[in-house]
């Protein structure tokens, strides 16, 4: 009797594949996006507390900036502002605002809102993540369509920071008592998507702004965000056609994703972003010597690194450390002078000999103290692409007689050591912005230098160059494009001469789209922006251009 019951229960359990859920198509015009990998959603739309706490696309898709930089085009696109003009001695900057822009609740957007946003950041330093008030003196609105920024000192790069600041409505935010811990559950904003249609822990939806200023945009009804906690799950969802737009790393993407539906499964990984570098700590042993750093760089087989670590999705970086997105700033002619990013172990050996690190009988290079040069290359546990890159690099460096070993740390521990300068070699990213100014500040300015043991936001390798300081100061004082270009070329020359960081490969931008239901995604043929949703503000181009494949029947909303 019991046996029969048991067997019956087992059979029932196995046959329950009445369990299959009927596959439900999302409503037409609702774009399913996988951007943030989380287990469950937290309702937070506070755009001013930057750093990944607010839901994507709060900064950009909900709250908009004055202008949007587009690395794919190397140009600025006017957004809430139509343009800007510099005052006489580059200590004042005025933006003229677009006419006819309304907040999603119908109120008019004016210069008052911009002034309020900047004043709020002055009052609440936690919001001023960009450090606007280090160069600003005051912000005023001479008329409702003009905002005037008075600078405390000439600081041309301030324009990029101001243009990229997202603006919040005064009439909502002036009555918020604790703006830092306010989650802003129902945002009032100017962006293409502002209406939170539903918000559950597993899924939430953001509907379009009924008052959006751009003619005919957005063309889609809503964005939908299922909570997907891991890259594997995101990949399965993409393969299955459940996600229309994503920014994931997918290994062997041609086979796994594109090959399954060559017509509609698209991806585009352009290299318009930053680069990934090998950081040599200039305070450790022989790494202070530029010849040694160049020798290290010459010993690295970057093609192999890109192939083994990055599935050939990207290309090796060159001596400038500047990506394809900086084409207008790069001095192509200077790249061939001393190409120390080319793989040349013989030259590496020559440089090491010259720097006084002779090869011992055991095949290891000796330092000035007669001891073998041993260096630890730190990387992050679980960041498998970087770990593989580190292993290739370590093998390359061992090849020229340096005793280099790879050691993985937990992210927190790794980043702490990096910032305090307590490492020998490490893989790392560098600042990336509309111009390479921030990158050069981090690479070789005395302003970004901190003593060993103190937390340095950038310049982890601890290097400063007086000539670069002079050039950077000059760059801050000129708004003349020809002059800017001349200084940029000189800064690139300083970078190449001093080799403060060793460029490894360009950081690709991961972007996948399923064009079954939607059209108008950027691609190599139509490069109006990068495809990836991962680039803050830039994705506004995509959000305002993609359209459903079949015309959507308008719903009364």
């Amino acid at each position, binding site marked *: 009797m019991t046996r029969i019951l048991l067997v019956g229960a087992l059979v029932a359990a196995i046959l329950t594949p009445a369990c299959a*859920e009927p596959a439900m198509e999302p409503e037409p015009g609702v774009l399913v996006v996988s951007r943030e990998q989380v287990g469950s959603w937290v309702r937070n739309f506070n755009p001013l507390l930057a750093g990944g706490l607010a839901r994507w696309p709060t900064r950009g898709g909900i709250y908009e900036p004055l202008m949007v930089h587009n690395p794919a085009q190397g140009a600025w696109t006017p957004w809430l502002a139509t343009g800007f003009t510099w005052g006489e001695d580059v200590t004042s900057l005025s933006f003229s605002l677009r006419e006819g822009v309304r907040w999603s609740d119908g109120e008019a957007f004016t210069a008052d809102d911009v002034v309020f946003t900047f004043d709020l950041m002055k009052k609440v330093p936690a919001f*001023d*993540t960009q450090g606007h008030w280090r160069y600003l003196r005051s912000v005023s609105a001479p008329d409702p369509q003009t905002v005037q920024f008075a600078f405390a000192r000439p600081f041309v790069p301030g324009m990029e920071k101001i243009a990229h600041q997202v603006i919040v409505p005064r009439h909502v935010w002036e009555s918020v008592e604790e703006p*830092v811990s306010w989650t802003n559950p129902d945002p009032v904003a100017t962006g293409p998507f502002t209406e939170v249609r539903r918000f559950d822990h597993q899924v939430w939806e953001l509907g379009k702004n009924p008052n959006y200023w751009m003619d005919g945009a957005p063309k889609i009804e809503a964005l939908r965000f*299922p*909570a*997907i906690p891991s890259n594997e*799950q995101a990949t399965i969802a993409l393969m299955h056609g459940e996600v229309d737009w994503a920014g994931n790393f997918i290994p062997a993407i041609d086979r796994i994703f594109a090959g399954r539906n060559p017509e509609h499964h698209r991806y585009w990984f352009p290299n318009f972003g930053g680069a990934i570098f090998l950081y040599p700590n200039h305070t450790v042993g022989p790494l202070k010597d530029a010849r040694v750093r160049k020798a290290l760089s010459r010993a690295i087989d970057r093609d192999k690194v890109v192939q083994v670590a990055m599935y050939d999705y990207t290309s090796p970086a060159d001596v400038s450390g500047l990506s394809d997105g900086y084409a207008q700033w790069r001095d192509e002619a200077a790249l061939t002078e001393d190409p120390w990013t080319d793989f040349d172990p013989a030259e590496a050996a020559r440089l090491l000999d010259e720097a006084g690190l002779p090869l011992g009988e055991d095949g290891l290079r000796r330092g000035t103290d007669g001891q073998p040069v041993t260096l630890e290359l730190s990387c992050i546990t679980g960041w498998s692409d970087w770990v593989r890159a580190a292993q290739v690099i370590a093998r390359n460096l061992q090849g020229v007689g340096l005793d280099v070993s790879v050691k993985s740390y937990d992210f927190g521990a790794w980043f702490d050591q990096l910032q305090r300068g307590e490492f020998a070699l490490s893989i790392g990213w560098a600042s990336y912005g509309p111009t390479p100014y921030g990158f050069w500040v981090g690479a070789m300015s005395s302003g970004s230098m901190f003593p060993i043991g103190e937390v340095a*936001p950038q310049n982890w390798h601890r290097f400063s160059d007086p000539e670069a300081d002079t050039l950077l100061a000059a760059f801050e004082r000129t708004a003349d494009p020809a002059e800017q270009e001349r200084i940029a070329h000189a800064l690139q020359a300083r970078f190449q001469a001093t080799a403060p960081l060793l460029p490894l490969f360009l950081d690709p931008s991961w972007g996948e789209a399923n064009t079954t239901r939607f059209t108008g995604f950027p691609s190599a043929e139509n490069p109006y922006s990068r495809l990836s949703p991962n680039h803050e503000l830039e994705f506004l181009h995509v959000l305002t251009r993609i359209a459903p494949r079949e015309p959507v029947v308008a719903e009364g909303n």
Partner: protein
Amino acid sequence: MGGTARYLLGRLGFYLLAAWVALSLNFLIPRMMPGDPATVMFARFQGQLSPEAMDALRETFGLSDASWWSQYWTYLRHALVGDFGTSVAYFPEPVTGVLLRGLFWTVVLAGSAVVVAFAAGTLLGTLAAWRRGGWLDSVLPPVLALLGAFPYFWLAMLALFVLGFGMGLFPLRHAYSDQLTPGLSPEFLASVFRHTLLPALTLVAVSLGGWMLAMRNTMIGVLGSDFIEYAHARGLAPRRVMLAYAARNAILPNVTGFGMALGFVLGGALLTEIIFSYPVQGYLLIQSVRAQDYPLMQGLFLTISLAVLAANWFVDCATVALDPRTRR
């Protein structure tokens, strides 16, 4: 009966002491990790954060430089009233809110899986020992031991890929269909059942063997005892001998194990969550460790340790009820 009460009260006192130790370790261990929450937090800005904003944020998140002693006292005081502060990773949500979200689904998924695995495993073990050498006894133990020997994530991924992705028999993720609004409607409950089935089955599949083998082995020992012979000789019904005489004695080690397993449930089925995107607590735990979110870590570890202690207390009570010898 007074002895029983004293015994149980004594155990309770011991558990309170253990709770205090857990509470203190809970405070200490996160702080012994290298790095601090601010560092990790600021990594998100990729070095573009102004030092002024960094200081302001540090203050906002309550990352004080106060001495450990004063932090410890504040922590103890707040913990007593269930206030664990604000999560750093999910700022500005309070830790209790973050915890409660995962807790419900943890209980639904891991709780039901443990109960089913325990009940089925114990029953199967009883039957296997009772009909020793029968087909149940010769087929199931090796099969279940084999299943249990597979790494869980591999088995779960295979199940998801073959049954969910390949054959489309089960939903691929989440605790209920995204098309439904949570509520007590029959559609919603059916959806929860459908979504829970595959992850729960994988959890049961790997743990069933352990329960069954443990039960079977103890039961075989008990069946060899004289009092079982005597019960048979008295002419008692075989089922009564099996359940009330043999199983009741053999189940004691399993009950202890059940208490432990129930406690660990609250730790969340970490891999289950990652593989099936099931919104349980496990992922929170990983995320809080990655972000060095002390308040969230404290809240999570405390829930887990308290759950283990509470489960053990209940096991003590159950043992007293099942085994008269402990009542002396």
